[in-house]
């Protein structure tokens, strides 16, 4: 017996599929149908599924969402809702997963950068996307990636030509906004950096008013040899929003990805980052912070695979759980046979600020090679009482002292962020979210 969630998606699917951008292309139609059938057949992962051990979907299973938003193009959104300081380059804005040309800025793109919505690419020339879009059925696929592969008709397609260095950061904005019904939207992004190319990408999830929509997003990111990507994610979805994202990153020889993430909003949010270091000398640095408060459930899942020789990972994530918030972190590093010279380090430190908050963390190492340096560490605890005492002895009120120390704890995740104005803004956003932050800031 399918759950209300699956039923609602399946019931309206034929109608949705017929209207999706790209409908009518035989290979794409077949692929979408196949993925939809697999989704309906298997349903949502249950509590016994190890990958979903700490993120229960029982409540979601009982809810029904309306797929797609016919009024997405007309919904009122103010540009001030998402504009970021110092970020005024190319911009792609989606409301409920639908491209909004009126809010976007695609004029005068720098040389070497090709940037357009997936809906347009599918209509104009879908063939180059076939490789990426056909990747739905890989082994790690779950209900949400399948649903996304079946029903996503829009998203971002970004390509940087070989050797092109793009200075202005590209701003990708996904907006959720109040509607009469609970909506489900799906976005699919494709990012490809040619050899020696470099780019800064800002992925921004915004909620403009209360709603309980479900969004899914799947991104495929390919870094060819020596390409450099700085990728900053700021997730500040609406309090009631549900968001399921999977990012698949492939790094070729000597490619370098720096991934920063700040998880602030949403009620049930999961972000999976699957990275494969498959070229010699590839490197991934990731820093992130998640701040579940209220009744938020924020889940981050890193799956980093070292396949080639002399690859490196450095992951530093911080979590702060307050009120009834729950933070879930899974950081897996696999060093495959033959990936000698791998150097992998992962750290996840967490603070529990309330007696009702919970943190579940699981750092994992799987090592199949011997010339390896691998280490991970994870902690769950409280602020250092001695540090608090020190600050109070210098005249700081208790609340301010706590906020200051918590902020410092989180800011470690922003270290080495090159973009100064953005770094400052993110620091302010952090401070606002922390307990007592409004008064201290």
């Amino acid at each position, binding site marked *: 017996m399918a759950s209300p969630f699956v039923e609602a998606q399946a019931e309206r699917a034929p109608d949705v599929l017929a209207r999706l951008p790209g409908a009518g292309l035989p290979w794409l139609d077949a692929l979408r149908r196949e993925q939809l059938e697999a989704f309906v057949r298997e349903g949502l992962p249950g509590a016994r599924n190890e990958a979903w051990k700490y993120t229960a979907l029982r409540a979601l299973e009982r809810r029904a969402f309306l797929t797609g938003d016919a009024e997405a193009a007309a919904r009122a959104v103010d540009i001030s809702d998402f504009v970021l300081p110092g970020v005024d380059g190319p911009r792609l804005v989606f409301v409920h997963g639908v491209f909004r040309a009126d809010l976007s800025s695609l004029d005068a793109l720098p040389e070497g950068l090709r940037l357009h919505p997936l809906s347009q690419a599918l209509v104009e020339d879908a063939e180059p996307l076939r490789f990426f879009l056909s990747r739905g059925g890989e082994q790690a696929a779950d209900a949400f990636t399948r649903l996304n592969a079946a029903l996503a008709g829009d998203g971002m397609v970004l390509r940087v030509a070989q050797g092109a260095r793009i200075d202005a950061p590209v701003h990708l904005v996904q907006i959720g906004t109040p509607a009469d019904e609970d909506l489900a939207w799906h976005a699919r992004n494709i990012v490809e950096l040619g050899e020696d190319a470099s780019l800064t990408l800002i992925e921004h999830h915004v909620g403009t008013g209360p709603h309980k929509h479900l969004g899914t997003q799947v991104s495929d990111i390919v870094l060819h040899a020596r390409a450099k990507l700085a990728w900053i994610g700021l997730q500040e979805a609406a309090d009631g929003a549900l968001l399921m994202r999977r990012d698949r990153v492939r790094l070729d020889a000597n490619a370098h990805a720096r991934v920063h993430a700040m998880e602030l909003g949403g009620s049930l949010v999961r972000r999976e980052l699957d990275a494969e270091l498959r070229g010699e000398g590839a490197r991934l640095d990731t820093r992130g912070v998640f701040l579940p408060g209220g009744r938020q459930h924020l889940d981050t899942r890193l799956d980093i695979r070292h396949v080639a020789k002399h690859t490196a990972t450095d992951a530093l994530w911080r979590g702060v759980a307050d009120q009834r918030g729950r933070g879930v972190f899974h950081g897996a590093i696999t060093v495959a046979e033959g990936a000698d010279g791998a150097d992998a380090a992962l750290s996840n430190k967490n603070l529990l600020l309330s007696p009702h908050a919970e943190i*579940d963390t699981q750092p994992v190492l799987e090592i199949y090679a011997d010339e390896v340096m691998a*280490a991970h560490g994870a902690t*769950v605890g409280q602020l250092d009482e001695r540090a608090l005492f020190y600050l109070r002895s210098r005249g700081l009120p208790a609340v301010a002292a706590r906020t200051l120390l918590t902020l410092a704890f989180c800011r470690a995740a922003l270290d080495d962020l090159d973009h100064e104005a953005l770094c400052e803004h993110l620091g302010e956003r952090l401070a606002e979210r922390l307990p007592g932050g409004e008064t201290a800031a």
Partner: protein
Amino acid sequence: MTAERSDNVATLRENNPEVVEALSRRYGAGFITDIETDSLPPGLNEDIIRALSALKEEPEWMTEWRLEAYRHWLTMPMPDWAKLKLSPIDFQAISYYAAPKNRPKSLDEVDPKLLETYDKLGVPLHERARLAGVAVDAVFDSVSVGTTFRKELAEAGVIFCSMSEAIKEHPELVREYLGTVVPTGDNYFAALNSAVFSDGSFVFIPKGVRCPMELSTYFRINAGHTGQFERTLIIAEDEAYVSYLEGCTAPMRDENQLHAAVVELVALEKASIKYSTVQNWYPGDENGVGGIYNFVTKRGDCRGDDSKISWTQVETGSAITWKYPSCVLRGDRSVGEFYSVALTHHHQQADTGTKMIHVGKGTRSKIVSKGISAGKSSNAYRGLVKVEKGAEGARNYTQCDSLLIGKTCGAHTFPYMEVKNSTAIVEHEATTSKISDDQLFYCRARGLDEENAVSMIVDGFCKQVFRELPMEFAVEAKKLLEVSLEGAVG
């Protein structure tokens, strides 16, 4: 290691039969004792369980307890989450009971062949026992063949006997505690064990007694096509203390024999139990043929305030080890410890770790796990630290280090941390690396050959755990590691 050097070693092996012999000399306990046994026919059903229970002259409640566990077991699937490579186990092909035919009435009547076996294994059962000062319960296949030092222990009020005897002589204690730490339906192998367990040790330390000597059980699988399913129950009443050692060996056979034990520890107020294991079941040969499948459930329950349970294990044997000695820290300020060295070589697979469940206030736990993998083996630490809502001020520290010797082995770490109390502090650290060339070079420059150098480095790597072992065991453990690692370098 350079390619040139490994070539040299290969040539050395070809031209030097002594080296070959040394390399294949590994499992010293692999002999078979030719002794007549009584055994039940292979197979598993309610009749077999009734027959087993009847053979052991058990009371009705015990038979029912077994049958209930068996019925539960039938409804359970074989767990597959540990991703072990194992050939399917045919539970109908195993004989669930094998015992030496001439059951002794006292230690003086023990079959000389049996004594010889334990002598070969270095286990003191007779006069040597007096010198060693350790009370031993020896379990041969399915039954206990003798327990030493009974008189001395009885004077102190300590009960140390086989489980079969305990069921007959102390049924009220067995009924009160059996299955309260590891319930019959706890997991697949615990359910199986509850249905068919044949013997094991029973220890009861009354209130305020500090057990005058170390207690020890020696398990030996001898008969072919059998499994060993022992059940150990240790109870330490208020302010009692006991240190318990467990050792195990089996002959070399091509078949995979099953060992599915359950160990339950109960520590009441201010009681302390120290449980040490040196596990040296037959690991299979260098091609992964044969060896013991070791699926064990060990759990300690710190029921009383200020109680303490400490697990120390050195795991060098078994084709597959699947074992998570755990502590349920229910009493306030109770303490759980887990010290482990797990070494795998050839095709061995070890998946071992612990669970520390913090329930009481101010509970503390410490985990130190050292994994060494060589050959084509796979060695995983899998652990859970759980802090329940009421565990104010709970504290955990976990350290897991893995050492890799060779390019084809795997070393994995799967820690789980679930924290529901904001005053708790949980810390986990893990590293994986190989023996560094610098370390090797230093030792070799001092005149040590490569094998000795590796052995010395491994010894240092494990020191933190060996320190926790009682003296006799520490010496044995160190030797075992050396033997198990032979042929791992080069």
